[in-house]
């Protein structure tokens, strides 16, 4: 089945003219028709448009054109603007919004020849860890449809894990790429803050948000990162650091590289099967020639609290633009203030309201210093913990999540418990470093994927991916397919 292959495998077949972009695209569309009713990864997709893009790619291919993603179908999270396609952010408040332009990341995918199609489900405005906060229904985990796929980019992870597309894009503010990748059993990369332009990404928390790829192996993540990276005059926070050839750095030789194991991550809530899988991964790294040392990130325990002040404060400001005036749904009022309040009260779901109100509170007069300013100072301490350790280690190894995928409804009534499920991924965003999750095993019964997280220094993606790929190639966990897909 073509839809089960990786970007690099398909690119080789396309180059040899063994397959056409239309055949690949059709096999993805067939898979969507077969399984999406069970997992609901897609909010919508335009099959005719995808096939038209495929035909255009085939024409280029037969003309000898070479581009890194030519003819590869890639789907995107519903938080990225794709010209003339709907954009809802998993929310009702955007109504019938149609994007008037392409996000820079989307523009770069298209320029690289990708077939960009589909709107992938997510927690409303990327706020959540399960996709249960989507206004359009929950996405299900392809490994067990009674369970969540993770979030907020749950649709992006489930679609790749179920082979409905070859790769996808998501966004990560506190783990929203790495956590669902771990829970669905694919590779999820959160690049360094500033690595990829965020122009056309609907903002949640501007000092934390970053776009990144979901893929079936690490090589594909490297290829996509190379395509997506680079400074952009339309995003002042994108950083002008040169973009290396990430795929070329994957030489498998990790002898002498040093990995840090933070003692603070071996916490009580860590599931024994997850711990065993991570311990085995660490042993595998030693076998491959890496050196593993224990390190300390002393402010780990404060990361979740810091995050939920900073992220909600920034969200309360960013989401002020959804006011029913310039776009989206509107509920009329006798004056503008009543119009705003009614529109936002009806348009936002419970989690978004909770965060906007918490964010407004921590920024409000009399509380700013006690909450927001203090959180920004603790953020400095968290960042310094990482930078200090990166002076001696090449990467840090942790579980991506404390447990495998939980059941739908299990945590939806307890926001704090839901927030604590992000405990291992949040620090990376606060510190502005890069991180990747790769499959590292399964729980026994039910069989659910477990993710290994590798964290690297700012703009250290090349070495991070090299480490991830060496492990992946030595173990092969990434090749396992959920029964739902394999049975097709």
């Amino acid at each position, binding site marked *: 089945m073509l839809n089960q292959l990786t970007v690099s495998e398909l690119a080789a077949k396309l180059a040899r003219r063994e397959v056409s972009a239309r055949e690949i695209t059709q096999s993805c569309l067939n898979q969507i028709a077969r399984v999406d009713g069970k997992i609901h990864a897609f909010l919508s997709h335009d099959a005719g448009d995808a096939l038209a893009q495929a035909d255009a790619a085939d024409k280029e291919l037969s003309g000898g054109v070479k581009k890194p993603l030519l003819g590869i179908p890639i789907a995107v999270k519903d938080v990225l603007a794709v010209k003339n396609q709907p954009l809802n952010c998993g929310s009702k408040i955007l*109504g019938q*919004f*149609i994007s*008037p*332009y392409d996000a820079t990341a989307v523009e770069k995918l298209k320029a690289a020849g990708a077939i960009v199609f589909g709107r992938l489900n997510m927690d409303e405005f990327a706020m959540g860890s399960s996709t249960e906060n989507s206004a359009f229904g929950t996405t299900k985990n392809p490994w067990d449809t009674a369970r969540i796929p993770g979030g907020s980019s749950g649709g992006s992870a489930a679609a790749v894990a179920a082979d409905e597309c070859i790769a996808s894009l998501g966004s990560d503010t506190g783990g929203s790429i790495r956590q669902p990748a771990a829970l669905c059993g694919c590779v999820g990369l959160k690049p*360094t803050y*500033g690595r990829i332009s965020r122009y056309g990404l609907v903002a949640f928390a501007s*000092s934390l948000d970053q776009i990144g790829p979901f893929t079936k192996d690490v090589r594909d993540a490297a290829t996509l990162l190379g395509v997506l990276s680079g400074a952009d005059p339309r995003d*002042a*926070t994108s*950083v002008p650091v040169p973009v290396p050839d990430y795929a070329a750095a994957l030489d498998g030789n990790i002898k002498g590289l040093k990995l840090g194991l933070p003692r603070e991550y071996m916490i009580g809530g860590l599931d024994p099967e997850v711990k065993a899988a991570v311990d085995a991964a660490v042993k595998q790294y030693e076998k491959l020639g890496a050196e593993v040392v224990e390190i300390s990130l002393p402010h780990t325990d*404060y990361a979740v*609290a810091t995050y*939920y*002040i900073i992220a909600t404060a920034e969200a*309360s400001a960013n989401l*002020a633009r959804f006011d*029913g005036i*310039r*776009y*989206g*749904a*509107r509920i*009329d009022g006798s*004056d*503008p*203030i009543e*119009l*705003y*309040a*009614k529109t*936002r*009260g*009806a348009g*936002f779901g419970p989690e978004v*309201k*909770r965060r906007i*109100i*918490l964010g*407004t*509170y921590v920024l*409000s007069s009399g*509380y700013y210093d006690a909450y927001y300013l*203090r*959180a*920004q*100072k*603790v*953020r*400095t*301490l968290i*960042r310094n913990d990482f930078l200090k350790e990166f002076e001696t280690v090449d990467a840090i190894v942790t579980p991506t999540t404390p447990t495998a995928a939980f059941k739908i409804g299990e945590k939806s009534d307890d*926001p*704090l418990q839901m*927030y604590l499920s992000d405990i291992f991924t949040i620090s990376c965003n*606060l*510190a*502005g*470093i890069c991180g990747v999750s790769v499959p590292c095993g399964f729980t026994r019964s039910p069989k659910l994927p477990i993710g290994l997280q590798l964290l690297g220094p*700012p703009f250290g993606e090349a070495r991070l991916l090299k480490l991830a790929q060496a492990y992946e190639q030595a173990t092969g966990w990434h090749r396992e397919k959920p029964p739902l897909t394999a049975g097709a």
Partner: protein
Amino acid sequence: MAAAEIDVKYVAHLARVALTPDEEKKLAAQLGGILGYIEKLRELDVTNVEPTAHAVPLVNVTRADELRPSLPHEEALRNAPRQANGLFIVPKIVE
């Protein structure tokens, strides 16, 4: 600064979010729990620690002050809930 002090109705007004009485009650309890958890940041001594607003220290990112193409007028209005004569229609603000 006790968590129970949060006046949800007032903060929701500041945030321009209309809430039902039910939502107000539920949010007060949930936010109380979350703020209680957040209180743990008080354990740390942050004297002389500089705040981090952005993880990447870029400053004064500027571009040349040149005319560039922008979104066409009709495109910018395309998603407006109400519009007329090339303008967004809003309720009356001044009498």
